[in-house]
């Protein structure tokens, strides 16, 4: 039997047991997983383990970098019939293009924005993160790019290329008295929220659905007036994939509306890049409510960052965190 290896975040759709069983029943392909816990680590794993992976999940902000390094190959959409259902804004998103070719199949998208404890006043702006009403009750996502994006949105700049980093830093440092902790995983977020350690937080849209639906946490996802931070995750085939054909079969299955319906309703998922899949959900489904299709037109999606900008973001975020600790 053919076997493929998928490199992804743990518990992020591709490794659902029921799905893999169905996929195997359908195609005879067995799927095993390896996980990463940060995007640079994903790239390192690709680089240091040629031939180990057949499918890899890449945030579209990293796709061009991976393509540039020759780690992934362009997608042969002929092998992915379900791609016909993909929203065109996503399927052909600029982030996925490199040298005129598309290197990834848009899979899911989501928004990083605010989550608030049910019953509290819904924030209208990211400025709520500095509101004394939330003193010691705020959690931030410990990620430089997200952090800078919020600071940029709040200071009215382009989140992918803010011109005034100092202003970004000042905005972020202004949250100091409110920040209780910096979360780095959804699990940590759930447990802390359950323990009532914070009320207002930067959070992921899909995760908010899972928290509410599966963990029964009283959380509401809010996109304030500055807008959310959009991201698009795509599935790619590494250049060294031993089973590129089977990999495409798997990717095709991953954007199948049937799979998505089950994933989103049983487990909780971000928004599918497949319009058909989204439509399969009931209209009042939480997932559909949060991930309004309209956002696709207006929302800024995280884009690739040149090395020096990335380094500047990292250093700024480090400086901001140091100011929180001091």
């Amino acid at each position, binding site marked *: 039997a053919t076997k493929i290896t998928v490199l992804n975040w743990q518990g992020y759709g591709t490794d659902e047991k029921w799905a893999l069983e169905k996929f195997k029943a359908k195609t005879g392909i067995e799927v095993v997983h390896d996980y990463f*816990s*940060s995007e*640079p*680590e994903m*790239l*390192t794993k690709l*680089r*240091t383990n040629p031939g180990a992976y057949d499918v890899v999940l890449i945030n579209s902000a990293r796709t061009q*970098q991976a393509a*540039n*390094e020759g780690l992934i190959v362009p997608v042969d959409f002929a092998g992915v019939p379900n791609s016909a259902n993909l929203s065109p804004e996503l399927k052909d998103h600029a982030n996925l293009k490199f040298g005129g070719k598309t290197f990834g199949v848009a899979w899911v998208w989501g928004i990083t924005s605010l989550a608030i404890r049910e019953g509290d006043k819904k924030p209208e702006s990211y400025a709520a993160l500095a509101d004394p009403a939330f003193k010691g009750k705020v959690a931030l996502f410990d*990620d*430089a790019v997200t952090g800078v994006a919020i600071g940029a949105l709040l200071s009215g700049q382009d989140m992918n290329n803010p011109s005034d980093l100092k202003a970004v830093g000042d905005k972020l440092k202004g949250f*100091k008295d409110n*920040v*209780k*902790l*910096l979360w*780095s995983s959804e699990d940590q977020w759930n447990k802390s929220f359950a*323990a*009532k*350690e914070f009320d207002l937080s930067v959070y992921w849209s899909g995760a908010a659905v899972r928290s509410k639906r599966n963990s029964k946490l009283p959380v509401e996802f809010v996109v304030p007036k500055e807008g959310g931070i959009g991201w698009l995750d795509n599935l790619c085939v590494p250049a060294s994939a031993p089973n590129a054909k089977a990999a495409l079969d798997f990717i095709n299955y991953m954007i199948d509306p049937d799979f998505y319906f089950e994933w989103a309703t049983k487990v909780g998922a971000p928004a599918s890049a497949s319009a058909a899949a989204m439509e399969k959900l009931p209209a009042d489904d939480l997932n559909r409510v949060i991930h309004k299709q309209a956002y696709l037109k207006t929302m800024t999606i995280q884009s690739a960052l040149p*090395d020096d900008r*990335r*380094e500047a973001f*990292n*250093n700024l975020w*480090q*400086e901001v*965190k*140091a*100011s*929180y*600790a*001091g």
Partner: protein
Amino acid sequence: MPADIPVASTGTPSGVPARRGIPGSVATIALLLPSYAWLLLAVFLPLCTMFVFSFMNATPMGKTPIVFTLKHYQAFYTQPYLVKIAWDSLLMGFWATLSCAILGFFAALALARATTGRVRETLLILILLPFWTNGLVRVFSWTMVLREGGFLDMLLHSVLPDAGSIGFLYTRPAIVLGLVHGYLPYMILTCYIALVTIDDSILEAAESLGARWWTILGKILVPLALPGLTTGAVLTFVPVIGAFMEPRILGGRVGVTMGTVIEDQFTQAFNWPLGAALSFTMLAVVLAIFATFSGVLRRNSGAAA
């Protein structure tokens, strides 16, 4: 047989006898080789590689052209907030090491003086056993204990139902507590090794000369256990400075240390050269501290009247 065949001179007071054939040095090398070859391959060569990385402009894994530079060693100068983080980390290391030293020294003393035989062996194993559970799980369990409304509060409220919360999760003391928990057994072990060799009669002699327990402690036990305390301090202080799990999980907002900065460089920012340069710089600082410290100690113990 001629009398003057040169034989490798390996005689020692403890005795490596004359042998025909294999000279003693070959046997010595054969004994040392597995360990040191292993360390060379698995630790020293990789670390050397990392040391070379620390002079590169970027992690030599992507497409970025590699240029050798000293810029990462200037980070403390170009990013002044790092100095503050380093200072806080050193302070945290100091408090964790001091707490370990105090708690561990007395535990070792109690082991060496108040227990014997089987009881002592059992206690030593019991002290080691928490290490057999995952460090992450242990630290995570501490959050359960320390958070507001956690086990500590529950315990308090079972005695004083109306008391407020004494939970101190997401504070520096919480980080120190977690670190002390993780490194205490090393300190106990090294102090214990130093303390068991102290002869009872030395303590009795001090007592017969009029010394009370605090004098015996300060003038006899601590100085004699100093080698153990120092080893324990190195085994605690150095890894504590580099710790990132405990600060992240127990420190919340205040959990920003050199360890987390370095970890971020490796896992988030993908700036290995900077991470390595920061590590080696911290290591140098720590070694300098220990060198100064032990120099001062040596001078003091030599000059005290």
